[in-house]
């Protein structure tokens, strides 16, 4: 507070000089003694002086000189002092002596010390056992820390789950027991199934190495000669997929998986009425051309298949014997999950096409099927069973016959293909074996909205244009491909391809490009925006005489088409740039 504060001791204080003083307080014993001694000495002097002056006065009065007096005094003093001193001494010797003696006693103190016996020291040590040490070294990587945290999280979650359902304790114990059994078995047999994932990846890699040039072509090759070819295009052959067991079967259906763009399903069966054998369903991935990913076999030939859009693991399949089935790819069995039977209303003729629909109001999966028995049936998966509902019966017009007992027999037309409109949900087209195309609605079960006199022979395929909502295309064994507007009765375009057309498909990337395949082994690709009358590409895909092409499909993402033929082969081809032009 603005005043200097005395600090008694400072760290940095250095003592330069110290002198132990020997001042004794007056009042203490020692101090008194010393003062007495001094006073005796002082008394002697004045006493002596007075005695001396008196004597001198007597003796030497006459002598006036002070100094001589002084000198005499001095002399006399000397003698006087000696006398006085003697006198005083005589008077006072005893008390000082006594005092001195006393003083001496007080100062002469005797130190007397004694020492105890020291016990002999004995050192005794004891040592505890050293804690066991072990050398441990590890590197704390980023991922080790991350892993540790993830484990903690999982443990916490598990403990939370365990807390909640206490009623399921019994179940969990069972599961644990099973789990333990499994683990013990696995440990014993050192099972190799754990490596399945790695093996799969490896197989694909090995294949990629072998078919390296094809893989490179698929990804990067663009036919540069297209610039010189004046709008013609080519199809570059890529992989060829084949499997032993399907060598005698024909490809009857192909479809790409909506979710995994490299996965496609191929249905095998036989178009020959006389030679009906078993059927197969194979799913291939473009990443592994030498072996299918999934293999399913069935008793009857498969005629058609369709992937569900929302559940890409469900495949609906129609058989030659009129049955339909649903295969679930997630399950490991080779049997269909659900199958229709004669009891549940299967078709009496081969099922030519199946298509999934949106889930109905009860969220049940349902799909439609068309067959030569003239019925279009909707199948619904209700509580793990397929329930069928006849949607439409294709009555061939003008063919009611008089049967026995006056019954009116309706002969039914044979449906061979159908397609649902992309936007208008209830509208669909059915192609028949008589060459007619019916435009129908799901709401009307007996009446058609419209009839198109399309072809002279069976309509093999109908398909709505994915972009132009009024346009559809149809192909038939009468060698023609026709493009229609559904409001107009006559076709807009007719193409004659010199051979029975097996299948036609719109491309997913352009509204004017479509491809058709014919039984003479050729694939034709048309682009209406470039050339309305001729194909941009006509290419022989399979050996002409022995093999017929049956189906074609565009890959939704990559510029690849797959073509199936009668020998059980599936060929993939890449579209050259001229064929891939997008409309402006």
């Amino acid at each position, binding site marked *: 507070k603005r005043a200097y504060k005395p600090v008694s001791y400072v760290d940095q204080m250095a003592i330069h000089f110290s002198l132990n003083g020997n001042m004794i307080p007056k009042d203490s014993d020692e101090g008194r003694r010393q003062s007495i001694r001094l006073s005796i000495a002082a008394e002697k002097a004045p006493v002596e002086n007075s005695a001396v002056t008196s004597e001198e006065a007597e003796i030497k009065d006459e002598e006036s000189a002070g100094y001589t007096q002084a000198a005499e005094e001095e002399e006399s003093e000397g003698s006087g002092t000696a006398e006085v001193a003697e006198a005083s001494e005589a008077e006072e010797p005893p008390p000082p002596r006594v005092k001195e003696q006393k003083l001496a006693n007080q100062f002469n103190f005797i130190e007397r010390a004694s020492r105890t016996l020291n016990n002999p020291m004995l050192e005794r040590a004891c040592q505890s056992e050293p804690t066991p040490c072990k050398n441990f070294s590890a590197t704390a*990587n*980023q*991922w080790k*820390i*991350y*892993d540790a945290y993830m484990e903690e999280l999982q443990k916490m979650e598990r403990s939370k789950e365990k807390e909640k359902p206490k009623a399921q304790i019994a179940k969990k114990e069972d599961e644990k027991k099973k789990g333990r059994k499994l683990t013990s078995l696995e440990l014993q047999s*050192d099972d*190799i*199934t*754990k*490596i*399945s*994932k*790695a*093996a*799969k*990846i*490896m*197989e694909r*890699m*090995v*294949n990629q*190495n*072998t078919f*390296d040039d094809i893989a490179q072509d698929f990804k990067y090759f663009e036919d540069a000669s297209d610039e010189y070819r004046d709008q013609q295009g080519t199809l570059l052959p890529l992989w060829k997929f084949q499997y032993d067991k399907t060598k005698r079967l024909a490809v009857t259906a192909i479809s790409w998986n909506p979710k995994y763009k490299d996965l496609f399903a191929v249905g095998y069966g036989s178009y020959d009425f006389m030679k009906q054998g078993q059927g197969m369903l194979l799913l291939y991935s473009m990443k592994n051309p*030498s*072996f299918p990913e999934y293999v399913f076999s069935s008793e009857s030939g498969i005629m058609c298949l369709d992937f569900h859009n929302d559940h890409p693991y469900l495949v609906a399949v129609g058989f030659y014997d009129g049955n339909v089935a649903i295969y679930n790819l997630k399950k490991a069995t080779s049997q269909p999950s659900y199958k229709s039977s004669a009891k549940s209303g299967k078709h009496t003729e081969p099922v030519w096409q199946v298509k999934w629909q949106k889930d109905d109001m009860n969220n049940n999966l349902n799909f439609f099927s068309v067959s030569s028995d003239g019925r279009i049936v909707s199948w619904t998966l209700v509580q793990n069973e397929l329930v069928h509902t006849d949607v439409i019966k294709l009555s061939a017009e003008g063919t009611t016959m008089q049967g026995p007992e006056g019954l009116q027999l309706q002969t039914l037309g044979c449906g061979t293909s159908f397609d649902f409109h992309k936007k208008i949900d209830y509208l669909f087209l059915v192609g028949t074996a008589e060459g007619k195309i019916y435009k129908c609605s799901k709401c009307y079960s007996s009446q058609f909205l419209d009839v198109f006199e399309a072809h002279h022979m069976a309509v093999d395929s109908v398909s709505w244009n994915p972009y132009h909502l009024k346009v559809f295309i149809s192909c038939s064994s009468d060698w023609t491909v026709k493009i229609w507007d559904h409001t107009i009765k006559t076709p807009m375009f007719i193409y004659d391809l010199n051979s029975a057309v097996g299948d036609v498909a719109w491309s997913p990337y352009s509204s004017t490009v479509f491809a058709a395949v014919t039984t003479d082994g050729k694939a034709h690709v048309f682009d209406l925006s470039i050339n309305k009358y001729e194909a941009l590409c006509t290419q022989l895909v399979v050996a002409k005489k022995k093999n017929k092409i049956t189906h074609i499909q565009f890959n939704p993402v990559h510029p690849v088409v797959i073509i199936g033929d009668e020998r059980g082969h599936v060929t993939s081809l890449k579209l050259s740039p001229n064929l891939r032009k997008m409309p402006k």
Partner: protein
Amino acid sequence: AEVEETLKRIQAHKGVIATMVINAEGIPIRTTLDNSTTVQYAGLLRQLTMKARSTVRDIDPQNDLTFLRIRSKKHEIMIAPDKEYLLIVIQNPCE
């Protein structure tokens, strides 16, 4: 089972010289080469795989190594790591 078939197919594929399955301790479980070569490959490649995996995960712990390919003049060594196993295939890519 199915895995056995896959491995057989890989071995029978064009250009494949050898296939090996090695467990987490570096002991070969299954191999088509002689023992000494297998052990040598196993030891060396296992260390390499661990280092590669450590690198990938250090950069991003949520990432993990799926496949490792070493292309040399003579052939290509492909390693597919699993949680406990290592599948090694040596192939001669026909060029």
